[in-house]
């Protein structure tokens, strides 16, 4: 399979997935480009232990999480230099909520929900995005996350609990269920 075929088959999926992580079209486009650069570079060593679809999903998830981490550390360094902020309190907060998939009348509500999702640990965040936004079934999500269905279900239940805490108390400092 060549990169063109792979691009046209999976670009929409990769773009939409990264959009759920960063909630910003510019960042999602950058992540999509980086994902296909990685796919191109790693395609010769792809061993078909999983399906191509699952493999591309995993690359897209890792790339999105790495992008967020890189952006966080860049901002943290900047603000630490100026105000000496405590880095534990720092979290990913997109400057602009520009999610084209969210309808205008739901923008405020969805922004609050995404704010809470952004505060979840990586695996929990991924389980919510794949199950509830991308609409994947449990077995597929478990395969993408390289977990068994039971373990993935447990991750999702913790995510649900944490989301509830975060949404009930806006700036909650309650300890997360890791």
């Amino acid at each position, binding site marked *: 399979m060549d*990169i063109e075929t792979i*691009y*046209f088959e999976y*670009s*929409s999926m990769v*773009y*939409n997935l990264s*959009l*759920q992580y960063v909630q910003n*079209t510019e960042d999602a*486009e950058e992540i*999509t*480009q*980086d994902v*296909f*650069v990685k796919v*191109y*570079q790693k395609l010769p060593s792809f061993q078909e232990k999983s399906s191509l679809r699952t493999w591309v999903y995993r690359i897209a998830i890792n790339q999105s999480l790495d992008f967020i981490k890189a952006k966080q550390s860049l901002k943290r360094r900047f603000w630490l230099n100026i105000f000496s902020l405590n880095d534990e309190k720092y979290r990913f907060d997109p400057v602009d909520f520009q*999610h*084209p*998939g*969210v*309808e205008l009348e*739901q923008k405020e*509500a*969805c922004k609050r*929900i995404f704010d809470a999702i952004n505060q979840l640990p990586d695996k929990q965040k991924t389980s*919510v995005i794949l199950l*509830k*936004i991308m*609409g994947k079934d449990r077995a597929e999500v478990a395969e993408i996350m390289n977990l068994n269905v039971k373990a993935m279900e447990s991750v999702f239940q913790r995510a*649900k609990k944490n*989301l*509830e805490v975060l*949404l*009930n108390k806006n700036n909650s400092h309650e300890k997360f269920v890791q």
Partner: protein
Amino acid sequence: MKNSSNELMENVFDALSSVKSVPPNGDLYRKTLMKIECSRGVSVYWVRTAAAALLLFLGAELYAVLRLQNQKNGDVPLIVCETNNQLYHE
């Protein structure tokens, strides 16, 4: 209490499932191909490694030359002929 929190989470997941899938920008494929082309060149990592190796080589050369020069300077007193004081001793 439990019911209201269940209701809250149901509303949250309903809102999330209403998020629509959007097509990527048509120009994105061209940009991706350009990025792939750029990635085909020599990576920054290898350029840095080569630069570091070159600097190391030049440093070693410089050190060797200076050491050789110092050795030559150290040999100077041995090369200079000793003054023959024989006449004065007579």
